[in-house]
């Protein structure tokens, strides 16, 4: 992912930018191991919202909460949830409290 930047700029970077570059590589490694590098920024935003919501509520969160917390449109959230579900990253189950809502849980947390 960083090959272009590495080849073009790394040699000429001053110390400050080299340090920032190392930090970016560290963050990239995190995304690589989470297997989320191929996600678009919008999809990542929804994914990170789900993680945050799951940390706060182990029972999972519903779609309305994800829409409200992510600030994304309902259709974008729906599309992303479908993709994440197809990739086996999240589980979508019907909420017991409200039959119209789906409960989202991270695989391994459910």
């Amino acid at each position: 992912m960083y090959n272009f930047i590495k080849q073009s700029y790394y040699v000429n970077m001053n110390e400050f930018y080299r340090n920032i570059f190392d930090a970016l590589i560290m963050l990239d490694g995190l995304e690589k191991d989470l297997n989320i590098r191929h996600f678009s920024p919008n999809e990542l935003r929804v994914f990170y919202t789900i993680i945050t919501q799951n940390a706060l509520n182990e029972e999972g969160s519903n779609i309305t909460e994800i829409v409200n917390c992510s600030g994304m449109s309902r259709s974008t959230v729906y599309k992303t949830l479908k993709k994440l579900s197809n990739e086996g990253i999240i589980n979508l189950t019907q909420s017991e409290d409200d039959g119209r809502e789906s409960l989202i849980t991270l695989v391994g947390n459910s």
Partner: protein
Amino acid sequence: MKNFFIVSVTSFVFSSVLWILWHFIDTHILFFAGEGVFFYLPHAARVLCIVYFGYKAIPGLYLGELFGPYVIEPGFYTFPIYITSLISVMSVPLTLSMLNSLGFTLGHTISSPLNRRNYKHIFLITFISAGFNSLLVNLYLSRNNLSYANAITDIDQVLSFFIGDILGTVLVFIFLGLLLKPILKQAQNQ
């Protein structure tokens, strides 16, 4: 000298912004009210700035720790925080020194015992420094009969500081990943 100035300004701004953000979430967003101790965002600034910029980030970080409580929200803490802020900032250099003395020198290649390009190593530093910070700050508070917002300085507070520093740092990493991804993609496409 120029690099020291840039590093100091970056560390100061990063630390201050995280404190202001954390304070806003803690006091203005009802859902999180009073629970901010469980996701203390500014610890990420301490870890990231000292790991990536070195010890020259310490003055900027220390000023950043004091700036929020004294300028943005005076009176937020009920006692002078000069010492506790210094302990918090120094928890990361203390961790790096300890790891260094054990043979884990910080570097940026795959052969470095502690590779700053490996997020797992950064998490290790975060974990140990959170331990030092929670223990030493609370030790200072209990020895001097001080408390944060009238909270009792006990083992629960030590644990909540420890968890808060780790969770806060993880949240900032996630946020930075989200923020920087489009910039990196753009650079890659150019």
